[in-house]
């Protein structure tokens, strides 16, 4: 598996897009720190970017890499390698190289600014961890979509739709349901619904760590009770891990029966 991982990884870090992505985060980090001149505020702005952008980039890269490396995959399938090793190697290659762009791109400006001396180091660390999680989650989901669709255009369409659903539509439906069901106690349901969307989960996890939950009103207090505690943090990270493991498990199920 590590040989495949190595090839996919070196293939990707040689590609132009990885650099574009890396430079984008690098610039974003510098600009935010320069404009805000305050680490905590920069982190909040960054949160809004990361929460939407990493899933989108993860989705696009995942689908694109799968379709572009089909020939390479077929070459590998005729070699004495296990299918699982081939696909897990490729998946990890994509997810790790994207996460590396994120960690280095944001890490460099923040370290130069002096994040290690700042009290916000934990918040920043959490933001990076969550960003990396989102990469792993969305690359895995998009790999699932690509594996199930032979047609490139269809695969791309479904993948973007999936991103749109989780990043935008889910929130809308969530909000409407809160308004419609206003007469009922909703805190438990809201907490529950958050768990089923990795983007929402990541956003709230970080917002509450940043101690701006007062802005969220009553529900914020309930959420703070849950996410603010160490138990809440552990459960949330477990949920994110589950969000990685389930799609990865399905990839492994799917490739057992797939014809190439």
């Amino acid at each position: 598996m590590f040989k495949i991982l190595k090839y996919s990884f070196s293939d990707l870090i040689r590609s132009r897009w990885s650099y574009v992505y890396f430079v984008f985060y690098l610039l974003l980090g510098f600009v935010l720190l320069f404009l805000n001149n305050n680490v905590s505020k920069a982190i909040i702005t960054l949160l809004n970017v990361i929460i939407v952008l990493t899933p989108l980039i993860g989705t696009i890269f995942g689908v694109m890499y799968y379709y572009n490396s089909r020939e390479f995959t077929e070459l590998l399938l005729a070699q004495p390698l296990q299918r699982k090793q081939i696909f897990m190697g490729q998946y990890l290659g994509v997810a790790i190289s994207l996460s590396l762009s994120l960690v280095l791109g944001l890490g460099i400006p923040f370290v130069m600014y002096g994040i290690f001396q700042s009290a916000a180091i934990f918040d920043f660390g959490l933001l990076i961890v969550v960003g990396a999680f989102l990469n792993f989650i969305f690359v895995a989901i998009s790999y699932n979509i690509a594996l199930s669709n032979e047609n490139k255009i269809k695969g791309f369409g479904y993948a973007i739709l999936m991103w749109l659903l989780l990043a935008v539509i889910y929130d809308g439906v969530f909000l409407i349901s809160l308004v419609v069901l206003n007469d009922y106690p909703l805190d438990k349901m809201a907490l529950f619904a958050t768990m089923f969307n990795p983007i929402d989960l990541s956003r709230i996890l970080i917002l509450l760590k940043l101690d701006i939950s007062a802005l969220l009103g009553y529900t914020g207090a309930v959420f703070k009770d849950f996410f603010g505690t160490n138990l809440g943090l552990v459960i949330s990270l477990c949920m994110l891990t589950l969000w990685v493991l389930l799609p990865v498990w399905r990839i492994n199920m799917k490739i057992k029966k797939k014809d190439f």
Partner: protein
Amino acid sequence: MIEIKNLHKSFNKLTVLDGLDLDFRSSGIFAILGPNGSGKTTLIKSILGMVVPEKGEILIDKVNILQQWTYRNDINYLPQIANFPSNLTVIELIKMVKNLRPKPASESELISTFELEPFLNKKLGNLSGGTKQKVNIVLTFMFDSNIIILDEPTTGLDPISLIRLKTIIQKEKDKGKTLLITTHIMSLVEEIADEIVFLLDGKIYFKGSIASLKEKTKENDLEHAIANLLQN
């Protein structure tokens, strides 16, 4: 030795292999023939484990190889269409494939046979179809394996390369290897094949030597014999 028992495979509603039984007991060159869509490539890909059959068994040296992978170390495969990652150079690709297989490779002689030296540092995406096929041939024959599977090996080759390829195939046969070849070029079959396997509607329609096929169909020419087989 390859034994295939009661192999079934369909794609959606299209049945491609329908209870196929076949064995290659001895070494030699076996030509797998049949009209387009008769299941030649599906059969080959099932042996390689790239296609997962619904029913049936494939045994190589009496071991069932379905869902296995180590056995592929003893198979060399030349795919039908030489599609390679376009941003790799020829030498990088050769090194990579060598690195993936735990056995020694001898590629330098093949590279000089096919005059590929000037292309070694060129990206695969920039090569012509014929040159890609030569790279494909080098990748296939650089390992010493008992089973060699060639899917349309002559695609895009110029006459000189074709002669060289035939020499290589003959050499491998003399070493006692089992070669499975699919092709539509009957002159090639007539020249090199020891036995013909004719696939039709997912089953074996004929298996035997060229002479026995000619005798059966009462034709003197292989092309006509095959056509005769199809018409009846």
